[in-house]
């Protein structure tokens, strides 16, 4: 199936890979079908390209690719809406905003996208966790993540629990 987009020209997509946000995204409730485009360069950023409107696309990122932890409690209503039976079936993305200075780029952790990988249904949910900002600074989160990883590594080493890794 071919679609015409502003950013990527004409692209060939697999209809089975379409994710349906039947309510649209907040502020964009009239469009429902999206496709996730993966970059070839190993970058953690993805494009959420709208199938219904070739002009519309968002940059998205999985929170755990730049955060140490992202605890999202998926409300019963959202799980029911998505037909989510197991947490493992949920794929999470945050929408990215890049201002003029790209170092100030942020991810929207308060309104994450939850996708049921099995049914390919999606919804932009609202996190009730007050720690989740609409504008979480990605580079700051990465520093925090590196720091946390360093701490964990150190404590493992100091307690002498150096076990061989596979």
């Amino acid at each position, binding site marked *: 199936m071919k679609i015409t987009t502003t950013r990527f020209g004409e692209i060939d997509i697999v209809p089975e890979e379409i994710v349906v946000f039947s309510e649209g995204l907040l*502020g964009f409730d009239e469009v429902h079908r999206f496709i996730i485009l993966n970059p070839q360069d190993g970058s953690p950023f993805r494009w959420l390209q709208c199938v219904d409107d070739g002009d519309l696309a968002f940059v998205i990122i999985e929170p755990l690719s730049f955060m140490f932890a992202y605890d999202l409690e998926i409300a019963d209503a959202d799980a029911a809406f998505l037909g989510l039976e197991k947490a493992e079936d949920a794929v999470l993305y945050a929408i990215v905003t890049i201002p003029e200075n790209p170092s100030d780029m942020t991810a929207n952790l308060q309104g994450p996208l939850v996708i049921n990988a099995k049914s390919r249904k999606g919804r932009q949910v609202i996190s009730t966790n007050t720690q989740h900002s*609409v504008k979480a600074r990605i580079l700051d989160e990465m520093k925090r993540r590196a720091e946390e990883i360093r701490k964990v590594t150190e404590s493992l080493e100091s307690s002498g629990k150096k076990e061989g890794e596979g």
Partner: protein
Amino acid sequence: MLVLTRKINEKIIIGDEVEIILVDIGKDQVKIGINAPKTVKVHRWEVYEEIQKENREAAKIKSLDALKNLPLDIMKNFGKKEK
């Protein structure tokens, strides 16, 4: 718009299942209790508005070229395992 006057502990019902109760009245704010089925989404309006605004802002990005100007070691620190 329908405007109703209520006293503390008085309720409003919307549809058959959503119940709203006026819990308390302060100087310049009121506390409202909401009983609704779990399938009904209830949020403060500002949160909705803020996320809408952020989505509109995010939709303006035309390419990821700007990220090429970031120091390379930053990109390397992203957590994705490379195959």
